[in-house]
């Protein structure tokens, strides 16, 4: 249960810079997700914290202690890998016991702790099974128990669920969260599934090409993306390129809307960001008459929602509506799109 800190960490592999002067602080008992596109350096960050690789410059601190000269084995870091990485020659309980045996714990202590951990992950019945006799989800539970067995100060999970099917993923996701909350262990969870990150984290760190693009609570990340990358990466978003005219007026081609939250933004080229579910096709209290006209170009069903593609002055907007009385909307229909200014966001061009 320790704070984890990276200060100005840079890591290069040959000519590629995997991590560039990265600062990250994970509080004690916090559950932080690292999200980002493939190759952005998530795994490298975890490996730096675990000590498999050393930073070229900068510092890794665990519990306020510089880890530079501390080997993997003495860092007390538990890791869960994407491909489980269970030892195929050992049973489930032998796998869980491995770390304690390596640390020369007493046999009695080991037995009690293993029983306890297997119970925690709900696999007491599988204690004597070998990894190849377990399902993917079961293997990952064992891997989690194995990582926790050494009572690590930090738990690192590298896309632990991405090899599993959707149903198992959903249940296991919340189980990990539950176990983390019960044990209060500082956790860094790597995923490229942003939905997953938003669902279970205390905070989400959005990574892009070796740096942290934005860090914040799931709510902040979702509704207040601070950069174009964040706005684009998390969830479905409408991003319209145009001009900020000052006075909360945003204009593109022939369309004009008023947009809020442009504090500090100077007039000039910028992007308008709005979530599909925040666009309405009828006037509401918040939007008043802040609207543009468009033509429906397509319609798809998403279960409870219907997603429309509406063209307005050369830009395509995605609009999510509740699936009620929408039969009359068909391709080619003209309609008005209403925006509540406080649901829009202007992002400066980079």
């Amino acid at each position, binding site marked *: 249960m320790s704070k984890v800190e990276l200060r100005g960490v840079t890591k290069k592999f040959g000519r590629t810079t995997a991590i560039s002067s990265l600062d990250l602080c994970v509080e004690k008992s916090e559950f932080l997700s690292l999200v980002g596109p493939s190759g952005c350096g998530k795994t490298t960050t975890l490996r730096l914290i675990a000590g*498999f*690789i*050393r930073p070229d410059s900068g510092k890794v601190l665990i519990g306020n202690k510089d880890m530079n000269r501390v*080997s993997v084995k003495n860092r007390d870091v538990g890791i869960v890998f994407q491909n489980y990485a269970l030892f195929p020659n050992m049973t489930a309980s032998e796998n869980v016991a491995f770390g304690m045996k390596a640390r020369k714990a007493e046999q009695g202590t080991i037995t009690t702790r293993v029983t306890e951990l297997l119970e925690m992950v709900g696999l007491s019945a599988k204690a004597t099974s070998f990894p190849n006799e377990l399902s993917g989800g079961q293997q990952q539970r064992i891997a989690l128990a194995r990582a926790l067995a050494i009572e690590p100060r930090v738990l690192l999970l590298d896309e632990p669920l991405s090899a599993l099917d959707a149903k198992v993923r959903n249940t296991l996701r919340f189980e990990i969260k539950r176990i983390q909350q019960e044990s209060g262990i500082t956790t860094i969870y790597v995923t490229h599934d942003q939905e997953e990150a938003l669902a279970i984290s205390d905070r989400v760190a959005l990574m892009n090409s070796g740096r942290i693009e934005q860090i914040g609570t799931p709510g902040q990340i979702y509704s207040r993306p601070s950069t174009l990358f964040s706005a684009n990466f998390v969830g479905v978003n409408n991003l319209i390129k145009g001009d900020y005219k000052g006075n909360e007026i945003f204009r593109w081609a022939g369309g004009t809307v008023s947009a809020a939250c442009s504090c500090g933004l100077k007039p000039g080229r910028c992007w308008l960001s709005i979530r599909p579910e925040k666009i309405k096709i009828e006037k509401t209290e918040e939007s008043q008459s802040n609207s543009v006209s468009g033509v429906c170009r397509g319609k798809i069903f998403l279960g409870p929602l219907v997603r429309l593609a509406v063209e307005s002055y050369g830009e395509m907007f995605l609009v999510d509506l509740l699936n009620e009385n929408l039969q009359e909307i068909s391709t080619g229909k003209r309609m008005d799109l209403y925006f509540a200014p406080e649901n829009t966001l202007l992002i400066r061009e980079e």
Partner: protein
Amino acid sequence: MERRGWIYILLLPITIVLAVFLLWPFVLVFLESLFSEGRLSLVNYTSLFIKGLYRESLATSLILSFSTALLGTLIGIPLSYALHKSGRKTRGFLLSINAIPLTFSGLVVGFSFIVLLGTSGFFTLLLKQFFGINPLEFSAFLFTWRGLMVAYLYFLIPRMILTMISAWSNANWSLLEAAVSLGAGPFTVLFKVLLPMLGPAILAGSSLLFAVSMGAYGTAFALTGVAVKILPLVIFTHVSDLAADIEKADSLAVVLALVTTGVILLYEQVFSRKLVKR
């Protein structure tokens, strides 16, 4: 990775063993081959082309290896396909049978062919009983290089099969189906789909066969004594015959090793680049 420098130490034992028992002896062979009667000269090499025995043995070896490689390839390809298609369980069994000749010394192979095709061999007498073929006339070929060819195939075909079996199972059959469904004719299928797909394995397999038969002499020794003058056998007789001049053997050995290494490098190139993608 930084922490892993010490791992290079683990390569030390194998490097030492290779250096002491392979590299150093070979360097010595090479150096010795450059000396004649205590003086530095290329006489050993030029004599290879002048002295009939050496020239002949090189030619015999090349012809023998080329024809066995060709035959082994031609027989091995359909056989490997049959094995590939013979069902999972049967295949495993057949493949272990297939590995048997690989562990035999050439001596055993030579002797078993005497028992099979020799003057009073089983097959020879069978031919005599049913077709009245003279055993002496029939079996005479066994002790020539043609006979060697047949015996060599016994341990070459398994190697071809081993090389091809992985090519068959890695082959992308949907490509073939796609080509056929798009109306490609048999020639297009052969040259545009099958050959590019299997070509590397075939080439690798046949160069392996070539190199193996180039270097082997146990079978020939058992079958013909030293009657058929293949290159390795000539080298061998130079060693056992104390009077013979060992520097000549050294130069022959260098030539032999150059040929086999060259062919094996070709094999490695083709095989590691095209078949085993890491």
